[in-house]
């Protein structure tokens, strides 16, 4: 049993202690916290694995907005998957379920990772 959602955090270390770092203007464009990636800085940030799309996303330590949670998984999900979850007709599948379906050889994944379409693999029948 997982006690905390943060138990699932990975880690990213960005070390610019011997580097000019990322200038503030570039950091903004690159979606990095400018306060933590400049010259001489060393940033350590949590990284979340998204249970829906199977991707990973750095958790910006300077973020003030709340994180998105899937209450079916009881885990944080990435912002992209959170948007897709709110669309009509959304089918909830975790990446483990998707991987098991593909691994069975009976399904293939089409579309994007946050909004996948699972297509049954059909075999050609002679005659």
């Amino acid at each position, binding site marked *: 049993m997982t006690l905390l959602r943060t*138990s*699932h*955090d*990975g*880690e*990213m*270390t*960005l*070390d*610019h202690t*011997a*580097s*000019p*770092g*990322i*200038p503030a203007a*570039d*950091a903004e*464009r*690159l*979606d*990095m916290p400018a306060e933590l*990636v400049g010259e001489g800085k060393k940033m350590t940030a949590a*990284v*979340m*694995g*998204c249970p829906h*799309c*199977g*991707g*990973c*996303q*750095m958790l910006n330590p300077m973020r003030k907005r709340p994180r998105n949670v899937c209450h079916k998984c009881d885990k944080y999900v*990435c912002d*992209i*998957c959170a948007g*897709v979850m709110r669309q009509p007709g959304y089918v909830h599948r975790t*990446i483990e379920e*998707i*991987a098991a379906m*593909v*691994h*069975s*050889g009976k399904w*293939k*994944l089409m*579309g*994007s*990772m*946050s*909004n*996948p379409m699972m297509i049954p693999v059909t075999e050609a029948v002679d005659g």
Partner: protein
Amino acid sequence: MAKRLFTSQGLTFTGQAAGSVIGTASSYMALKGGASTQIIDVLEIFISGMATASTVAGMIMDRVSTLETTPTALAAPNRDGGMNPSITALVSGSTVVPFVTASTQPTPSNTVTDIALNLALNLFGGIVRWNAATTQQWWIIGNTAPAGESILFNSSTGGGSTGLANAHIMYEPY
């Protein structure tokens, strides 16, 4: 299975736009499933900048929207192998495909609903390391786009400039 390391040395990561076919050979690291049912857990990415002047690189781990044709087998100094010397070879037909160039290069995804892991750094002395927590790995599923292949490249879309780096991708195939 067992953990493997895909390592590149002295690769010039050319800044290239997401959503467009990669225009420069040997300017990225890509990992593709060896079979339609293969699962790969990507566990760690490490990039060590080797540029001799300040170079901000928009490194990202991304899905691939259009696969390459005929990946070229890795050649020294780039390499791929098991982390344990006693590793058992993968079963024929399910061998993972790590590559840095191909006959026709892959296209990194710019689809809004395909996530990308941001690993931007200054390649002049900068180091970035990403580690996945247990069960929170980056997934590669099958061997077709977009789930079956991922690419570590320098995105000019976010303002990345071309620069030299050493890098590795740690992964575990099933």
